[in-house]
């Protein structure tokens, strides 16, 4: 019974059965799985503006999350020159895919949270940690200088060390209130090993034992926010002409 013909037939039947089974299951679960992923990503963006929301992102229901995106969130996609691209929403941009493209071809997602007459701009950044990719969402106040909040995530940083950028809320909370411009020059936010001075507007404390991840965060912020600079300076100029818009 163990001749080649039997082995081949067995493998063929087995593979076909398994393929049909798994395809069926995937199709049956796809709609809700995709919705779950979508809401997971939306929550990640909202956690950057946690201080602006009435309720902790964690305790919001899925419908509430969708509602905020429907009512208060404008989604733009920018090219590297700062032009707004038509017919595409920020959510359709996959930062992991964009990062593989040459720099000049990348598209940037920009979320604008509009509530109480104030705009909060949420920028997406992505870079390298120690083991794998790290990414985050940075929220800027309407002055386009002060950071309103930040949230980070990672693919494979060490739990207890590099993974603290996500797990330890104290790390991301440090960013609130820091400024990305010094005398109208872009300086970003540095992550300082051994601790940043309390009065330093442009730096936060690093994490002991996670120097490479912290350096990765600083590098990601510098490069990632700089990508948005053409658009941000356009915005700043237009708001100077029309101060009423502030």
């Amino acid at each position, binding site marked *: 019974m163990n001749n080649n013909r039997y082995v081949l037939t067995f493998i063929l039947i087995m593979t076909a059965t398994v393929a049909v*089974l798994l395809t069926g299951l995937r199709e049956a679960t796809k709609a809700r*799985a995709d919705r779950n992923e979508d809401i997971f990503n939306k929550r990640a963006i909202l956690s950057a503006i946690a201080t602006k929301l009435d309720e902790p992102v964690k305790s919001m229901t899925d419908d509430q999350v969708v509602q905020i995106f429907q009512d208060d969130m404008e989604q733009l996609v920018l090219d590297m020159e700062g032009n707004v691209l038509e017919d595409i929403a920020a959510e359709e941009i996959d930062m992991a895919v964009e990062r593989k493209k040459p720099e000049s071809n990348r598209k940037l997602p920009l979320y604008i949270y509009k509530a109480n007459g104030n705009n909060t701009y949420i920028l997406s950044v992505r870079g390298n940690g120690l083991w794998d990719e790290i990414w985050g969402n940075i929220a800027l106040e309407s002055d386009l200088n002060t950071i309103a909040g930040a949230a980070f995530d990672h693919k*494979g940083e*060490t739990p207890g060390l590099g993974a603290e950028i996500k797990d330890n809320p104290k790390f991301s909370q440090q960013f609130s209130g820091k400024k990305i411009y010094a005398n109208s020059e872009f300086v970003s936010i540095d992550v300082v090993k051994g601790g940043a001075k309390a009065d330093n507007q442009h730096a936060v404390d690093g994490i002991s034992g996670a120097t490479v991840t912290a350096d990765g965060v600083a590098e990601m912020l510098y490069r990632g926010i700089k990508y948005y600079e053409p658009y941000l300076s356009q915005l700043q100029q237009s708001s100077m002409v029309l101060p009423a818009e502030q």
Partner: protein
Amino acid sequence: MAETIVKEQVKDKEPLFGKKERQLLSDPLNDNNPITVQVLGICSALAVTSLVYPSLVMAVAVVFVTAFSALFTSLLRNYIPKQVRLIVQLVIIATLVTVVELTLKYLNYPVYKQLSVYIGLIITNCIVMGRLEAFSMANKPWRSFLDGLGNGVGYGVILVMVAIIREIFGKGTLFAGSPIELALIGPSADYFINTTTNTWFSWYSNNNLMVLPAAAMFIIGVMIWIQRSYNTKLVDVS
């Protein structure tokens, strides 16, 4: 003559929960535990045990995979060509793992994200394939199923025990990320033991070592030590 035939028939029939069956279930929990005695599946035991809730999900996933891969392998054992039996076992395991992955995406996406690669890595967990090759290929479906179930549970129990210790002392919480999250030891007023105002525990602060994978190795080491000190037949005589 008639009597012996009846007796033989009775012998042939395996009881659902005879002595042998109970042993198949209980052996992996103690005397032949996959983690503390066979030292298999250590990779995921070190990696996913920093929080209880993901560990629990991981444990359930592994129990599902070990039990049903054993069942299906055993059902097919007389048809599987010997030359490709490992590949066939692997396909069975991989199918079940994919089922787990799709189900988790459907039911609880955040936990799926948290466990990330470790769900996929169940495929390479030595416990699963080890039991298929050593037991299911040579035993009947029901017994194989119990053997798989027992080994999965034996792995899962250790996983959850390690996770409970690590989460309490590392993060000061229990079941974080689940619907019944408990805040146990910490600085804020919401915590069960408030280390800033509680005079008895004010000396304690969360131990970051417990969050690191190395802590799981120490804890499993201590568990093996404790187990061998009361179960002396496990101690190697050399």
